[in-house]
């Protein structure tokens, strides 16, 4: 989301309780484009495994939809509690949730129900935001409370919320008998103060990794962490395809040259045009190999040069699968995905000249039409990864 040239990065990471194949915590984040709102919901279902997963999935879905419809929070929580199936052993229906609703003016409203208190990290320290306490009447559990806090998000602020897998990690151990608790604050402050620009994604990963370490590398509960970070946007230009009119080659090259941010060129012809117009030398790198794809190239002033349509096709498949954790020696498509996910504002500069040679029906089906693949990538980046994406045709 763009907010006076600020971008709100939302990222999340979770690990299952040791031995479980599904996670009992659920997270959902949605960008309401028309309103410029970002809603993020984290829920921890009672117990662990499939049962907890069903409870938390129901909770996040309902909380997300009710919040998006501006339903009152009391009504939302009552509806959730009445809908959740009852646990056969404990005879209660229970899951926690934390809803973070940020509007287009960066006003934040956080609603917590039985979840560990969120952290707001601002200018090197944690800020305590006053919270309104609202009782929720329950027949099965006695009264519980909703905690509502409202504040305005400022540049470089971070909101961190997590399931109790994080706050209670290490519980019972000699060094932290009552769990991680305030140790988490010290750890986060240390990380952020050491590297001011640490991304939401990296911070969420590090917090979960540390919680796992606290538990002796065998998590005792499902562990999830969401980080929201308001920052100056990291810009990325992806340039793919030659311009429809050859006269625009120079224009394309200048757009690439003058772009402020990181740059990727996807396409042999595109890269050749840029290299020719800007007088930059290009070299194919045969060391990084992906059997499915043609190799990468290197060009001065450009962060990544790859082949076009086959690589973009694989990028689209990776983004669809959501499996975006790669090893260091990743192939061209993985490197593109990594750069896409490490950026906030992405401009896709798409050349519309059609390579006649690609239109042969005997060719593999992977040779899709560039414009279609690019549109799919835009959709995925916007809806699944909450990026700001713009396509420009040339």
């Amino acid at each position, binding site marked *: 989301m763009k907010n006076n040239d600020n971008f709100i990065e939302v990222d999340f990471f979770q690990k299952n309780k040791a031995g479980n194949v599904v996670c009992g915590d659920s997270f959902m984040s949605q960008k309401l484009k028309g309103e410029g709102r970002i809603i993020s919901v984290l829920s921890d279902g009672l117990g662990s495994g499939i049962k907890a997963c069903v409870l938390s999935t129901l909770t996040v879905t309902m909380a997300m939809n009710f919040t998006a419809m501006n339903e009152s929070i009391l009504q939302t929580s009552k509806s959730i509690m009445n809908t959740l199936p009852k646990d056969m052993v404990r005879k209660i229906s229970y899951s926690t949730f934390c809803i973070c609703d940020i509007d287009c003016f960066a006003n934040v409203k956080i609603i917590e129900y039985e979840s560990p208190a969120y952290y707001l990290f601002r200018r090197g320290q944690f800020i305590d935001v006053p919270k309104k306490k609202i009782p929720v009447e329950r027949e099965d559990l006695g009264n519980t409370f909703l905690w509502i806090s409202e504040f305005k998000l400022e540049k470089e602020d971070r909101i961190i919320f997590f399931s109790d897998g994080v706050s209670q990690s290490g519980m019972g151990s000699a060094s932290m008998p009552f769990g991680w608790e305030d140790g988490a604050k010290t750890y986060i402050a240390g990380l952020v103060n050491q590297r001011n620009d640490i991304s939401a994604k990296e911070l969420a990963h590090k917090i979960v990794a540390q919680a796992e370490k606290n538990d002796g590398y065998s998590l005792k509960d499902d562990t999830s962490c969401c980080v929201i970070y308001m920052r100056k946007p990291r810009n990325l230009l992806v340039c793919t395809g030659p311009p429809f009119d050859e006269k625009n080659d120079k224009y394309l090259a200048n757009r690439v040259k003058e772009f402020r941010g990181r740059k990727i060129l996807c396409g*042999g012809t595109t890269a050749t045009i840029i290299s020719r117009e800007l007088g930059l030398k290009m070299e*194919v790198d045969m060391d990084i190999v992906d059997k499915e794809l*043609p190799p990468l190239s290197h060009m001065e002033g450009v962060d990544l040069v790859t082949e076009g349509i*086959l690589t973009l096709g694989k990028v689209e498949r990776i983004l669809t699968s959501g499996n975006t954790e790669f090893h260091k020696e990743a192939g061209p498509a993985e490197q593109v995905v990594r750069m896409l996910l490490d950026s906030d504002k992405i401009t896709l500069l798409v050349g519309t000249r059609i390579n006649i040679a690609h239109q042969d029906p005997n060719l593999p089906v992977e040779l899709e039409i560039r414009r279609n693949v690019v549109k799919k990538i835009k959709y995925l980046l916007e809806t699944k990864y909450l990026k700001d994406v713009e396509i420009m045709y040339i």
Partner: protein
Amino acid sequence: MTNKINLKICVGTMCYVMGGAELKDAIETLPAELTEHLNITYSPCLGCCETQRPPLIEINGKRIAGVSKINLIQIVKEEIRNAV
């Protein structure tokens, strides 16, 4: 032979799909007595797949279309023989 033969293999989309990937493997398996005469480079796109049949190579500035694993080795051998 003093000057090495410049061999450029296209690894652009069309060439790669139409057999360029195999050419790369074929080059890697050439015996040393052939590769010592070659200066092998790769091109992201030679820019002629719309008019010529891929995969394409360029050997000492000459473009050759429709190259296969087998005739690549023959082309290389012939070029070396001519150069000596």
